[in-house]
Protein backbone atom coordinates (compact mmCIF):
# COMPACT_ATOMS: atom_id res chain seq x y z
CA UNK A 1 0.00 0.00 0.00
CA UNK A 2 3.07 2.24 0.25
CA UNK A 3 3.15 4.54 -2.79
CA UNK A 4 6.72 4.98 -4.08
CA UNK A 5 8.31 8.12 -5.52
CA UNK A 6 7.30 9.01 -9.05
CA UNK A 7 3.81 7.51 -8.98
CA UNK A 8 1.99 10.71 -8.00
CA UNK A 9 1.97 14.05 -9.79
CA UNK A 10 2.80 17.28 -7.99
CA UNK A 11 -0.79 18.38 -7.38
CA UNK A 12 -1.70 15.07 -5.74
CA UNK A 13 1.33 14.70 -3.48
CA UNK A 14 1.36 18.38 -2.51
CA UNK A 15 -2.37 18.30 -1.69
CA UNK A 16 -2.00 15.10 0.34
CA UNK A 17 1.06 16.48 2.13
CA UNK A 18 -0.83 19.63 3.12
CA UNK A 19 -3.74 17.65 4.61
CA UNK A 20 -1.38 15.23 6.36
CA UNK A 21 0.74 18.09 7.72
CA UNK A 22 -2.29 19.68 9.37
CA UNK A 23 -3.42 16.34 10.82
CA UNK A 24 0.04 15.49 12.19
CA UNK A 25 0.42 18.98 13.66
CA UNK A 26 -2.91 18.65 15.43
CA UNK A 27 -1.96 15.14 16.57
CA UNK A 28 1.28 16.47 18.07
CA UNK A 29 -0.67 19.08 20.02
CA UNK A 30 -3.34 16.63 21.25
CA UNK A 31 -0.91 13.92 22.33
CA UNK A 32 1.37 16.51 23.93
CA UNK A 33 -1.54 17.71 26.07
CA UNK A 34 -2.55 14.16 27.01
CA UNK A 35 0.84 12.50 27.54
CA UNK A 36 2.92 15.55 28.48
CA UNK A 37 6.55 14.56 29.11
CA UNK A 38 5.70 10.88 28.48
CA UNK A 39 4.82 11.74 24.87
CA UNK A 40 8.24 10.96 23.40
CA UNK A 41 9.12 7.72 25.26
CA UNK A 42 5.60 6.24 25.02
CA UNK A 43 4.94 7.07 21.37
CA UNK A 44 8.55 6.41 20.35
CA UNK A 45 8.74 2.92 21.87
CA UNK A 46 5.23 2.05 20.69
CA UNK A 47 6.17 3.30 17.22
CA UNK A 48 8.94 0.72 17.26
CA UNK A 49 6.36 -1.87 18.39
CA UNK A 50 4.03 -1.03 15.46
CA UNK A 51 6.99 -1.23 13.08
CA UNK A 52 7.80 -4.71 14.39
CA UNK A 53 4.11 -5.73 14.35
CA UNK A 54 4.03 -4.84 10.65
CA UNK A 55 6.67 -7.52 10.15
CA UNK A 56 4.17 -10.20 11.20
CA UNK A 57 2.97 -11.96 8.05
CA UNK A 58 -0.25 -13.93 8.02
CA UNK A 59 -1.55 -16.36 5.39
CA UNK A 60 -4.29 -15.14 3.07
CA UNK A 61 -4.74 -18.13 0.77
CA UNK A 62 -3.35 -19.64 -2.41
CA UNK A 63 0.21 -19.33 -1.11
CA UNK A 64 -0.07 -15.55 -0.61
CA UNK A 65 0.35 -13.59 2.60
CA UNK A 66 -0.38 -10.17 4.01
CA UNK A 67 0.95 -8.13 6.89
CA UNK A 68 -0.55 -5.96 9.60
CA UNK A 69 -1.17 -2.27 8.99
CA UNK A 70 -1.58 -1.64 12.70
CA UNK A 71 -3.75 1.49 12.50
CA UNK A 72 -6.80 -0.05 14.20
CA UNK A 73 -4.57 -1.76 16.73
CA UNK A 74 -2.79 1.47 17.69
CA UNK A 75 -6.13 3.33 17.80
CA UNK A 76 -7.64 0.72 20.13
CA UNK A 77 -4.66 1.07 22.47
CA UNK A 78 -4.04 4.81 22.50
CA UNK A 79 -6.66 6.66 20.46
CA UNK A 80 -6.63 8.05 16.92
CA UNK A 81 -4.21 10.97 17.30
CA UNK A 82 -1.54 8.89 18.98
CA UNK A 83 -2.03 6.29 16.25
CA UNK A 84 -1.60 9.02 13.62
CA UNK A 85 1.70 10.15 15.14
CA UNK A 86 3.02 6.63 15.66
CA UNK A 87 2.20 5.54 12.12
CA UNK A 88 3.56 8.77 10.63
CA UNK A 89 6.87 8.16 12.38
CA UNK A 90 6.93 4.56 11.17
CA UNK A 91 6.16 5.65 7.60
CA UNK A 92 8.96 8.24 7.64
CA UNK A 93 11.47 5.65 8.83
CA UNK A 94 10.25 3.12 6.28
CA UNK A 95 10.55 5.66 3.46
CA UNK A 96 14.01 6.85 4.49
CA UNK A 97 15.72 3.64 5.56
CA UNK A 98 13.81 0.71 4.14
CA UNK A 99 12.86 2.01 0.65
CA UNK A 100 9.22 1.32 1.53
CA UNK A 101 7.21 4.25 0.19
CA UNK A 102 8.52 7.39 -1.42
CA UNK A 103 9.76 10.68 -0.03
CA UNK A 104 7.55 12.80 -2.29
CA UNK A 105 4.70 10.35 -1.70
CA UNK A 106 5.15 10.51 2.07
CA UNK A 107 2.25 12.94 2.52
CA UNK A 108 -0.07 10.62 0.60
CA UNK A 109 1.10 7.54 2.50
CA UNK A 110 0.64 9.36 5.80
CA UNK A 111 -2.83 10.48 4.74
CA UNK A 112 -3.88 6.93 3.78
CA UNK A 113 -2.31 4.86 6.54
CA UNK A 114 -1.74 7.29 9.42
CA UNK A 115 -4.73 9.62 9.14
CA UNK A 116 -7.59 7.94 7.26
CA UNK A 117 -7.05 4.42 8.64
CA UNK A 118 -6.96 5.40 12.37
CA UNK A 119 -9.87 7.82 11.93
CA UNK A 120 -12.02 5.16 10.26
CA UNK A 121 -11.18 2.70 13.07
CA UNK A 122 -11.98 5.40 15.64
CA UNK A 123 -15.37 6.09 14.00
CA UNK A 124 -16.23 2.38 14.02
CA UNK A 125 -15.23 2.05 17.71
CA UNK A 126 -17.36 5.08 18.59
CA UNK A 127 -20.35 3.88 16.55
CA UNK A 128 -20.26 0.35 17.99
CA UNK A 129 -19.77 1.40 21.60
CA UNK A 130 -16.05 0.94 22.28
CA UNK A 131 -13.44 -1.74 21.89
CA UNK A 132 -15.35 -5.03 21.63
CA UNK A 133 -14.64 -8.05 19.43
CA UNK A 134 -17.10 -7.04 16.70
CA UNK A 135 -16.03 -3.39 16.64
CA UNK A 136 -12.33 -4.36 16.62
CA UNK A 137 -12.84 -6.69 13.70
CA UNK A 138 -14.95 -4.22 11.74
CA UNK A 139 -12.72 -1.28 12.69
CA UNK A 140 -9.62 -3.13 11.50
CA UNK A 141 -11.28 -4.36 8.33
CA UNK A 142 -12.74 -0.94 7.45
CA UNK A 143 -9.46 0.85 8.21
CA UNK A 144 -7.56 -1.36 5.76
CA UNK A 145 -10.23 -1.01 3.06
CA UNK A 146 -10.39 2.79 3.51
CA UNK A 147 -6.61 3.14 3.27
CA UNK A 148 -6.53 0.94 0.16
CA UNK A 149 -9.38 2.90 -1.46
CA UNK A 150 -7.64 6.21 -0.70
CA UNK A 151 -4.41 4.88 -2.23
CA UNK A 152 -6.30 3.85 -5.36
CA UNK A 153 -8.03 7.23 -5.60
CA UNK A 154 -4.73 9.10 -5.33
CA UNK A 155 -3.06 6.94 -7.98
CA UNK A 156 -6.04 7.51 -10.29
CA UNK A 157 -6.15 11.25 -9.51
CA UNK A 158 -2.49 11.47 -10.50
CA UNK A 159 -3.35 9.79 -13.81
CA UNK A 160 -0.99 6.86 -13.18
CA UNK A 161 -3.57 4.07 -13.41
CA UNK A 162 -7.25 4.03 -14.50
CA UNK A 163 -9.52 4.31 -11.46
CA UNK A 164 -11.67 1.27 -12.18
CA UNK A 165 -8.64 -1.01 -12.52
CA UNK A 166 -6.68 0.22 -9.51
CA UNK A 167 -9.75 0.46 -7.25
CA UNK A 168 -10.79 -3.09 -8.09
CA UNK A 169 -7.25 -4.42 -7.58
CA UNK A 170 -6.48 -2.54 -4.36
CA UNK A 171 -9.84 -2.89 -2.64
CA UNK A 172 -10.39 -6.44 -3.88
CA UNK A 173 -7.09 -7.66 -2.46
CA UNK A 174 -7.41 -5.68 0.78
CA UNK A 175 -10.89 -7.08 1.43
CA UNK A 176 -9.01 -10.28 2.27
CA UNK A 177 -6.03 -8.61 3.97
CA UNK A 178 -8.53 -6.71 6.15
CA UNK A 179 -9.98 -10.00 7.41
CA UNK A 180 -6.52 -11.12 8.55
CA UNK A 181 -5.88 -7.75 10.15
CA UNK A 182 -9.22 -7.98 11.97
CA UNK A 183 -8.58 -11.52 13.23
CA UNK A 184 -5.09 -10.72 14.57
CA UNK A 185 -6.22 -7.43 16.12
CA UNK A 186 -9.13 -9.22 17.89
CA UNK A 187 -6.75 -11.85 19.29
CA UNK A 188 -4.26 -9.11 20.23
CA UNK A 189 -6.79 -6.95 22.10
CA UNK A 190 -8.23 -10.00 23.92
CA UNK A 191 -4.71 -10.94 25.05
CA UNK A 192 -3.79 -7.43 26.17
CA UNK A 193 -7.15 -7.04 27.96
CA UNK A 194 -6.42 -10.21 29.97
CA UNK A 195 -3.16 -8.61 31.10
CA UNK A 196 -5.13 -5.67 32.52
CA UNK A 197 -3.08 -3.19 30.52
CA UNK A 198 -5.89 -2.10 28.20
CA UNK A 199 -7.80 -0.63 31.16
CA UNK A 200 -4.77 1.52 31.88
CA UNK A 201 -4.11 2.63 28.31
CA UNK A 202 -7.38 2.22 26.40
CA UNK A 203 -9.17 5.41 25.43
CA UNK A 204 -12.48 3.68 24.78
CA UNK A 205 -13.02 1.59 27.89
CA UNK A 206 -13.26 4.26 30.54
CA UNK A 207 -14.46 7.30 28.71
CA UNK A 208 -13.25 8.92 25.55
CA UNK A 209 -10.07 10.88 25.28
CA UNK A 210 -8.01 9.48 28.15
CA UNK A 211 -5.13 9.40 25.74
CA UNK A 212 -5.53 11.36 22.50
Amino acid at each position, binding site marked *: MHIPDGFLD*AKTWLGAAAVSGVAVGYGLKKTGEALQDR*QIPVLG*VLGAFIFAAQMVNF*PVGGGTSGHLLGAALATALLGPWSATLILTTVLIIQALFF*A*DGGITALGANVLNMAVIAPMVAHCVYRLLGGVRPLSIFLGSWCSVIAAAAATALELALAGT*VPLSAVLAAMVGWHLLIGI*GEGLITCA*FVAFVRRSGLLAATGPYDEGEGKIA
Partner: protein
Amino acid sequence: MVDLHGEPPGIPGGRGGVWLPFHRVDARVKLVGLIGYIVLATGLKAWPNLLAGIAFLGLLLTLTGTGWRRAAARLALASPLAGAMLLFLPLVTPGHPWQHIEVGPWDLVLNREGFQLAAVLGLRMANALLAAALLLDTSPWGDLMAALRSLGVPAAFVQLIDVTLRYIFVTAGELARMKTALKARCFKSGRSLLHRDTFSTWGQVTGTLFIRSWERSERVYQAMLARGMAGGPAAYAPVTPPRGGDLAWGLVLVGTGLILRLLEPGGWAWAILSR
Protein backbone atom coordinates in the same frame (compact mmCIF):
# COMPACT_ATOMS: atom_id res chain seq x y z
CA MET B 1 19.67 0.76 5.97
CA VAL B 2 20.95 2.60 8.94
CA ASP B 3 23.62 1.50 11.33
CA LEU B 4 23.48 3.66 14.42
CA HIS B 5 26.44 1.96 16.01
CA GLY B 6 28.77 1.60 13.03
CA GLU B 7 31.40 4.00 11.84
CA PRO B 8 30.08 7.40 10.78
CA PRO B 9 28.54 7.36 7.31
CA GLY B 10 30.41 9.16 4.58
CA ILE B 11 33.84 8.12 5.84
CA PRO B 12 33.92 4.95 3.85
CA GLY B 13 36.20 2.10 4.48
CA GLY B 14 35.36 0.46 1.16
CA ARG B 15 37.50 -0.16 -1.89
CA GLY B 16 36.80 3.09 -3.70
CA GLY B 17 38.67 6.32 -3.01
CA VAL B 18 37.01 9.49 -1.74
CA TRP B 19 37.30 11.91 -4.66
CA LEU B 20 34.61 14.30 -3.47
CA PRO B 21 34.26 15.28 0.21
CA PHE B 22 30.46 15.05 0.03
CA HIS B 23 30.26 13.66 3.58
CA ARG B 24 31.55 17.02 4.87
CA VAL B 25 28.74 19.01 3.23
CA ASP B 26 26.25 20.53 5.67
CA ALA B 27 23.44 17.99 6.31
CA ARG B 28 20.78 20.68 5.84
CA VAL B 29 22.07 21.46 2.37
CA LYS B 30 22.23 17.76 1.47
CA LEU B 31 18.70 17.21 2.79
CA VAL B 32 17.18 20.13 0.91
CA GLY B 33 19.32 19.57 -2.21
CA LEU B 34 18.59 15.87 -2.54
CA ILE B 35 14.87 16.23 -1.75
CA GLY B 36 14.77 19.02 -4.35
CA TYR B 37 16.48 16.67 -6.80
CA ILE B 38 13.96 13.90 -6.01
CA VAL B 39 11.02 16.28 -6.51
CA LEU B 40 12.36 17.32 -9.92
CA ALA B 41 13.56 13.91 -11.09
CA THR B 42 10.36 12.07 -10.16
CA GLY B 43 8.45 14.39 -12.46
CA LEU B 44 10.55 13.42 -15.50
CA LYS B 45 8.77 11.64 -18.32
CA ALA B 46 11.58 10.90 -20.79
CA TRP B 47 13.65 7.79 -20.13
CA PRO B 48 16.93 9.25 -21.52
CA ASN B 49 16.71 12.04 -18.94
CA LEU B 50 15.85 9.57 -16.21
CA LEU B 51 18.85 7.46 -17.18
CA ALA B 52 21.03 10.59 -17.18
CA GLY B 53 19.81 11.26 -13.61
CA ILE B 54 20.75 7.73 -12.56
CA ALA B 55 24.18 8.19 -14.17
CA PHE B 56 24.65 11.47 -12.28
CA LEU B 57 23.78 9.85 -8.95
CA GLY B 58 25.94 6.83 -9.79
CA LEU B 59 28.86 9.12 -10.44
CA LEU B 60 28.31 10.88 -7.12
CA LEU B 61 28.04 7.55 -5.28
CA THR B 62 31.30 6.44 -6.84
CA LEU B 63 33.24 9.67 -6.41
CA THR B 64 32.13 10.17 -2.81
CA GLY B 65 33.46 6.72 -1.98
CA THR B 66 30.03 5.63 -0.78
CA GLY B 67 29.94 2.71 -3.13
CA TRP B 68 27.07 0.82 -4.65
CA ARG B 69 26.54 -1.87 -2.02
CA ARG B 70 23.94 -0.06 0.06
CA ALA B 71 22.43 1.65 -2.96
CA ALA B 72 21.99 -1.75 -4.60
CA ALA B 73 20.40 -3.06 -1.40
CA ARG B 74 17.85 -0.23 -1.50
CA LEU B 75 17.08 -0.95 -5.15
CA ALA B 76 16.67 -4.64 -4.31
CA LEU B 77 14.19 -3.78 -1.55
CA ALA B 78 12.02 -1.96 -4.07
CA SER B 79 12.36 -4.59 -6.82
CA PRO B 80 9.26 -6.69 -5.88
CA LEU B 81 7.09 -3.62 -6.37
CA ALA B 82 8.79 -2.82 -9.67
CA GLY B 83 8.18 -6.41 -10.76
CA ALA B 84 4.51 -6.21 -9.79
CA MET B 85 4.18 -2.96 -11.76
CA LEU B 86 5.68 -4.53 -14.85
CA LEU B 87 2.98 -7.20 -14.62
CA PHE B 88 0.04 -4.94 -13.70
CA LEU B 89 0.47 -1.73 -15.71
CA PRO B 90 0.62 -3.31 -19.20
CA LEU B 91 -2.70 -5.02 -18.39
CA VAL B 92 -4.63 -1.94 -17.27
CA THR B 93 -3.09 0.99 -19.16
CA PRO B 94 -5.11 1.90 -22.26
CA GLY B 95 -3.10 1.74 -25.49
CA HIS B 96 -1.97 -0.46 -28.35
CA PRO B 97 -2.02 -4.22 -27.81
CA TRP B 98 1.48 -5.66 -27.91
CA GLN B 99 1.37 -9.18 -26.51
CA HIS B 100 -1.40 -11.68 -25.82
CA ILE B 101 -1.06 -14.17 -23.00
CA GLU B 102 -3.56 -16.95 -22.43
CA VAL B 103 -4.01 -17.83 -18.77
CA GLY B 104 -6.58 -20.62 -18.52
CA PRO B 105 -9.85 -19.28 -19.95
CA TRP B 106 -8.57 -15.66 -20.03
CA ASP B 107 -6.83 -13.94 -22.92
CA LEU B 108 -4.73 -11.17 -21.34
CA VAL B 109 -3.74 -8.26 -23.55
CA LEU B 110 -0.53 -6.45 -22.64
CA ASN B 111 -0.27 -2.89 -23.98
CA ARG B 112 2.92 -1.21 -25.19
CA GLU B 113 2.02 2.02 -23.37
CA GLY B 114 1.74 0.08 -20.10
CA PHE B 115 5.27 -1.28 -20.47
CA GLN B 116 6.56 2.21 -21.26
CA LEU B 117 4.78 3.65 -18.21
CA ALA B 118 6.16 0.87 -15.98
CA ALA B 119 9.68 1.58 -17.27
CA VAL B 120 9.36 5.32 -16.58
CA LEU B 121 7.97 4.72 -13.09
CA GLY B 122 10.74 2.23 -12.35
CA LEU B 123 13.42 4.71 -13.45
CA ARG B 124 11.83 7.47 -11.34
CA MET B 125 11.90 5.13 -8.33
CA ALA B 126 15.54 4.30 -9.01
CA ASN B 127 16.44 8.01 -9.10
CA ALA B 128 14.70 8.64 -5.79
CA LEU B 129 16.19 5.57 -4.11
CA LEU B 130 19.74 6.40 -5.19
CA ALA B 131 19.35 10.01 -4.03
CA ALA B 132 18.11 8.79 -0.64
CA ALA B 133 21.02 6.32 -0.45
CA LEU B 134 23.48 9.15 -1.13
CA LEU B 135 21.92 11.24 1.63
CA LEU B 136 21.86 8.47 4.23
CA ASP B 137 25.28 7.05 3.45
CA THR B 138 27.04 10.41 3.71
CA SER B 139 25.22 11.89 6.73
CA PRO B 140 25.47 10.73 10.34
CA TRP B 141 22.07 10.14 11.86
CA GLY B 142 22.49 12.86 14.50
CA ASP B 143 23.33 15.43 11.80
CA LEU B 144 20.18 14.54 9.90
CA MET B 145 18.05 14.95 13.03
CA ALA B 146 19.71 18.30 13.73
CA ALA B 147 19.11 19.30 10.10
CA LEU B 148 15.42 18.47 10.36
CA ARG B 149 15.20 20.47 13.56
CA SER B 150 16.96 23.51 12.14
CA LEU B 151 14.75 23.35 9.02
CA GLY B 152 11.73 23.94 11.24
CA VAL B 153 10.39 20.43 11.91
CA PRO B 154 8.85 20.49 15.43
CA ALA B 155 11.31 19.36 18.11
CA ALA B 156 8.90 16.81 19.59
CA PHE B 157 8.43 15.21 16.20
CA VAL B 158 12.16 15.00 15.48
CA GLN B 159 12.75 13.45 18.88
CA LEU B 160 9.93 10.99 18.27
CA ILE B 161 11.56 9.82 15.01
CA ASP B 162 14.89 9.56 16.81
CA VAL B 163 13.54 7.45 19.69
CA THR B 164 11.45 5.24 17.37
CA LEU B 165 14.42 4.43 15.16
CA ARG B 166 16.57 3.55 18.17
CA TYR B 167 14.00 1.07 19.50
CA ILE B 168 13.04 -0.43 16.14
CA PHE B 169 16.12 -2.66 16.22
CA VAL B 170 15.47 -3.68 19.84
CA THR B 171 11.82 -4.53 19.18
CA ALA B 172 12.45 -6.22 15.83
CA GLY B 173 15.15 -8.33 17.51
CA GLU B 174 12.70 -9.29 20.23
CA LEU B 175 10.13 -10.32 17.62
CA ALA B 176 12.75 -12.38 15.79
CA ARG B 177 13.57 -14.24 19.04
CA MET B 178 9.87 -14.88 19.64
CA LYS B 179 9.54 -16.28 16.12
CA THR B 180 12.51 -18.57 16.77
CA ALA B 181 10.89 -19.73 20.01
CA LEU B 182 7.65 -20.45 18.12
CA LYS B 183 9.58 -22.50 15.57
CA ALA B 184 11.32 -24.39 18.38
CA ARG B 185 7.86 -25.27 19.70
CA CYS B 186 6.92 -26.62 16.25
CA PHE B 187 4.56 -23.79 15.33
CA LYS B 188 3.69 -23.82 11.64
CA SER B 189 1.72 -21.01 10.08
CA GLY B 190 -1.53 -22.07 8.41
CA ARG B 191 -2.16 -21.65 4.71
CA SER B 192 -5.29 -19.49 4.67
CA LEU B 193 -7.45 -17.02 6.58
CA LEU B 194 -9.47 -19.97 7.92
CA HIS B 195 -6.60 -21.25 10.09
CA ARG B 196 -7.78 -20.01 13.48
CA ASP B 197 -4.74 -21.15 15.44
CA THR B 198 -2.37 -19.05 13.32
CA PHE B 199 -4.24 -15.82 13.98
CA SER B 200 -4.67 -16.57 17.66
CA THR B 201 -0.92 -17.24 17.98
CA TRP B 202 0.10 -14.09 16.12
CA GLY B 203 -2.35 -12.08 18.23
CA GLN B 204 -0.68 -13.41 21.37
CA VAL B 205 2.81 -12.78 20.00
CA THR B 206 2.02 -9.16 19.12
CA GLY B 207 0.23 -8.79 22.47
CA THR B 208 3.31 -9.97 24.35
CA LEU B 209 5.46 -7.65 22.25
CA PHE B 210 3.16 -4.74 23.10
CA ILE B 211 3.25 -5.45 26.84
CA ARG B 212 7.05 -5.59 26.77
CA SER B 213 7.17 -2.37 24.70
CA TRP B 214 4.81 -0.62 27.10
CA GLU B 215 6.95 -1.61 30.06
CA ARG B 216 10.07 -0.54 28.13
CA SER B 217 8.52 2.88 27.45
CA GLU B 218 8.10 3.37 31.19
CA ARG B 219 11.76 2.42 31.79
CA VAL B 220 12.84 4.78 29.00
CA TYR B 221 10.79 7.56 30.57
CA GLN B 222 12.35 6.92 33.99
CA ALA B 223 15.82 6.87 32.42
CA MET B 224 15.14 10.17 30.66
CA LEU B 225 14.03 11.69 33.95
CA ALA B 226 17.12 10.31 35.67
CA ARG B 227 19.28 12.01 33.03
CA GLY B 228 17.68 15.34 33.78
CA MET B 229 14.92 15.61 31.18
CA ALA B 230 12.79 18.57 32.20
CA GLY B 231 9.91 17.91 29.81
CA GLY B 232 11.35 19.98 26.98
CA PRO B 233 12.65 18.64 23.69
CA ALA B 234 16.20 17.32 23.43
CA ALA B 235 18.83 19.73 22.20
CA TYR B 236 20.41 18.90 18.85
CA ALA B 237 23.56 20.41 17.35
CA PRO B 238 23.85 24.23 17.53
CA VAL B 239 22.75 26.02 14.40
CA THR B 240 25.53 27.53 12.29
CA PRO B 241 24.95 28.93 8.81
CA PRO B 242 26.05 26.69 5.91
CA ARG B 243 29.29 27.70 4.15
CA GLY B 244 29.54 28.84 0.55
CA GLY B 245 30.95 25.49 -0.58
CA ASP B 246 28.01 23.68 0.99
CA LEU B 247 25.53 25.93 -0.79
CA ALA B 248 27.35 25.28 -4.07
CA TRP B 249 26.73 21.56 -3.57
CA GLY B 250 23.05 22.29 -3.00
CA LEU B 251 22.96 24.24 -6.26
CA VAL B 252 24.63 21.36 -8.13
CA LEU B 253 22.02 18.88 -6.85
CA VAL B 254 18.93 21.01 -7.48
CA GLY B 255 20.47 22.47 -10.67
CA THR B 256 21.02 19.00 -12.14
CA GLY B 257 17.40 18.08 -11.46
CA LEU B 258 16.27 21.35 -13.01
CA ILE B 259 18.44 20.92 -16.11
CA LEU B 260 17.09 17.40 -16.61
CA ARG B 261 13.56 18.81 -16.45
CA LEU B 262 14.33 21.70 -18.79
CA LEU B 263 15.97 19.42 -21.35
CA GLU B 264 13.08 16.99 -21.53
CA PRO B 265 11.80 16.55 -25.09
CA GLY B 266 8.87 18.93 -25.37
CA GLY B 267 10.01 20.70 -22.19
CA TRP B 268 10.53 24.41 -21.60
CA ALA B 269 14.05 24.55 -23.08
CA TRP B 270 12.93 22.92 -26.33
CA ALA B 271 9.96 25.26 -26.56
CA ILE B 272 12.25 28.28 -26.22
CA LEU B 273 14.92 26.93 -28.62
CA SER B 274 12.41 26.04 -31.31
CA ARG B 275 11.12 29.63 -31.57
